[in-house]
């Protein structure tokens, strides 16, 4: 039958009426994409209405922002010694927190992985811990831990640790579940215990993924710990908060500059390390080294020595960081009554209209900012991505700008906008919009540059104009990653918008901080529960949408 149709088509004149329908059937992908687009537009409109955005408020806001900028210039830098101490404290918080999280995430990930035979309630419990710690932002844990352990970097490091556990453990769980089950089965067949199978057989295989996850998280945590000081949990954020609190805007600008430089250096370092480790991987395998004379000796070669030294240095730095937090037993013991009071006060959770309104406002700020930010990010990505950029010098400038803007934590933008425009969701929306734009620009640029160049070349070679070649050769390929990355930006924005209220930039964060300050832990607990459900729900929706699109 098919052959018959083809033959007829081949012999029919070109303008004869076609045999079949000319409109392609509506696919599931089209429906999902259209649904997401409609949702984004609707949510953005609702957000604009909620925060009272109009051309006049926007113009007034810009004027306020300009006046604030004038008061910030020229920046005034604190004494070099003070600033160095604060930077070191910031780094130590991040290192200690990330290290603790890395250590804790190994047993958690093995408990959560579906590969292990055994009781399933431990698996469910481990999965719950991962979801919970991932959903609740670092700053929320910081507020709670400042209550329990007092002001200072110890609370900050613990907050970083608890929130990071969820992400590192999730990535590790994924790696464990993707690993080949056969080597584990082979050692089980030798009579090994489950702990031995996990640590001696599976862990060596997932180690590269684990190290990558920990380093990635360390990068995030250094950024996060630079603003923990806003709630008194140590680091350079303390100085920023003090400067803004005393209306010393020039000092605040100086500290922000220091934070930017710190984060740019980090960015540079991660690029260098990424290049180095790439080289190491390409080096060939080691043959039997001459030094391994004794038949049971380990063969020491350059790679093994480097790996060993690297791991040793990392452990030493981690222990030093831990020590610097001064975790004396009596201090930890003092925290116990506070913690117990907090935990007993949390039950039963006090849900109220205020809680739901707060979370709704956070959700609107996040989704609105992500939608508008994705659009702006797309525009920037089209200017910077190597395969579509219209003008290289402009691409380079925009690229650097995006890195700088992305380097500044959202909370810093929020602090500035609150200072300029006053309290409220408008400040939070603008702060999140800026960071979403930069984040989306980076993701989209990377995605565009990874596309297959052949379709674009093919269209160009048959005489398509630049816009035609883009529309046919690039855009269709790019749509899935546009939507996927856009959803990811929304997911991240939601976690951030929850804490913006801590500095008065709208959303549920303000209520959260107030509830802890007034010892209404039952309200705190209700907020945490609602946040977890909403974050997990959005994440699940994003995952489903991605699965139907990719």
């Amino acid at each position: 039958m098919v052959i018959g149709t083809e033959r007829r088509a081949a012999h029919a004149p070109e303008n004869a009426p076609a045999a079949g329908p000319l409109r392609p059937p509506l696919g599931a992908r089209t429906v999902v994409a259209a649904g997401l687009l409609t949702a984004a537009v609707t949510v953005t409109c609702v957000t604009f209405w909620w925060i009272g955005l109009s051309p006049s408020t926007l113009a007034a806001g810009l004027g306020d922002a300009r006046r604030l900028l004038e008061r910030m210039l020229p920046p005034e830098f604190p004494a070099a010694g003070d600033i160095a101490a604060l930077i070191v404290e910031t780094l130590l918080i991040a290192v200690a927190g990330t290290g603790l999280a890395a250590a804790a995430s190994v047993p958690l990930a093995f408990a959560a992985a579906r590969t292990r035979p055994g009781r399933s309630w431990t698996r469910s419990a481990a999965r719950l811990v991962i979801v919970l710690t991932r959903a609740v932002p670092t700053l929320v844990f910081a507020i709670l831990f400042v209550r329990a352990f007092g002001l200072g970097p110890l609370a900050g490091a613990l907050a970083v640790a608890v929130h990071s556990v969820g992400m590192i453990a999730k990535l590790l769980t994924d790696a464990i579940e993707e690993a080949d089950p056969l080597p584990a089965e082979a050692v089980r067949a030798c009579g090994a215990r489950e702990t031995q199978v996990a640590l001696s057989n599976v862990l060596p295989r997932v180690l590269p993924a684990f190290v990558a996850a920990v380093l990635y998280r360390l990068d995030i945590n250094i950024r996060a710990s630079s603003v923990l000081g806003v709630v008194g949990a140590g680091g350079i954020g303390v100085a920023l908060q003090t400067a803004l609190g005393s209306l010393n805007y020039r000092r605040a600008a100086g500290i922000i500059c220091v934070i930017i430089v710190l984060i740019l250096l980090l960015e540079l370092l991660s690029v260098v390390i990424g290049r180095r480790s790439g080289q190491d991987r390409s080096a060939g395998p080691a043959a039997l080294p001459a030094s391994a004379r004794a038949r049971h000796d380990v063969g020491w070669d350059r790679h093994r020595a480097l790996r060993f030294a690297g791991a040793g240095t990392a452990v030493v730095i981690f222990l030093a960081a831990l020590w610097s937090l001064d975790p004396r037993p009596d201090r930890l013991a003092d925290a116990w009554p506070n913690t117990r009071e907090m935990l007993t006060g949390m039950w039963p959770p006090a849900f109220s209209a205020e809680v739901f309104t707060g979370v709704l406002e956070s959700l609107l700020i996040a989704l609105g900012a992500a939608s508008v930010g994705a659009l702006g990010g797309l525009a920037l990505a089209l200017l910077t991505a190597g395969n579509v950029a219209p003008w290289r010098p402009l691409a380079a400038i925009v690229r650097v700008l995006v890195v700088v803007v992305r380097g500044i934590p959202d909370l810093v933008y929020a602090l500035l906008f609150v200072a300029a425009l006053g309290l409220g969701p408008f400040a939070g929306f603008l702060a999140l919009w800026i960071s979403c734009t930069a984040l989306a620009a980076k993701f989209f640029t990377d995605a565009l540059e990874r596309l297959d160049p052949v379709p674009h070349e093919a269209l160009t070679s048959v005489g398509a104009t630049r816009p035609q070649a883009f529309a046919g050769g690039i855009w269709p390929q790019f749509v899935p990653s546009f939507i996927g990355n856009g959803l990811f930006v929304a997911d991240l924005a939601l976690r951030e918008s929850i804490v913006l209220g801590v500095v008065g930039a709208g959303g549920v964060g303000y209520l959260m901080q107030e509830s802890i300050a007034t010892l209404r832990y039952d309200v705190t607990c209700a907020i945490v529960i609602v946040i977890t459900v909403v974050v997990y729900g959005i994440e699940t929706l994003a995952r489903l949408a991605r699965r139907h699109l990719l």
Partner: protein
Amino acid sequence: MSDTRGEAVLDLAHVGKGFGGTVVLDDIDLTVPQGQFVALVGPSGAGKSTLLRLVNGMHLPDRGTVRTLGVDPAACSRRELRALRSRVGFVFQQFGLVGRLSALENVLMGALATLRWPRYGVMSYPRALRERAVHQLDRVGLADQRFQRCDTLSGGQQQRVAVARTLLQRPELILADEPVASLDPAASAMVLDILKRISVEDGISVVCSLHQVDLALSTADRVVALRSGRIVLDEPAAALSAERLHALYEKAGAHGDRH
């Protein structure tokens, strides 16, 4: 049918096993005395892998009883099962090695059952074990490659590392599930030769599933053929001709094991 050099290391009586409604093994009776090399032949899907996994308790039978080294895996606690498995070596078609680790560390994992805690890195294993592990690698001809990452070894070398790992267990019985199915002819002959030598030198029984008829005849003391979950032939290898075994395969093909 089988010689009586020693006590039975393996005794299956009326064993049946199914997965989700499909019968994989049906009424299997098999006794293997000490020191015997048994080749288990039959088309894919005949139940060879399942039979081997019933022996070391990776699967449990639906019907009948399994006695491995005098122990019933179905009646074992988790600890007893681990103890039994440490006495039974298992060689996999796909080796089951950790590619990122050295040959030596992979061999050392065979001795985990004798150690209390997890180990990480060659140096975390006791020195005496390391010496024994190198000795076993020497037996399979790979002592010089002991610090080489396993994913840089050839398929035949990897399977020999896996055999050395099994030997480090000091097994009383070795089960091998298509140990040479992923290897080229030269490497296949070498691996089977090593298994045969171990069986003769150490007096260990080997139950090895194979689908190459000629290899089964040249290596084994006894050939057991399975088809559709039943034993259809069980004879000393010396009394068998290649034609009779080939006929078995052809019949299986005609009966449509392949649809």
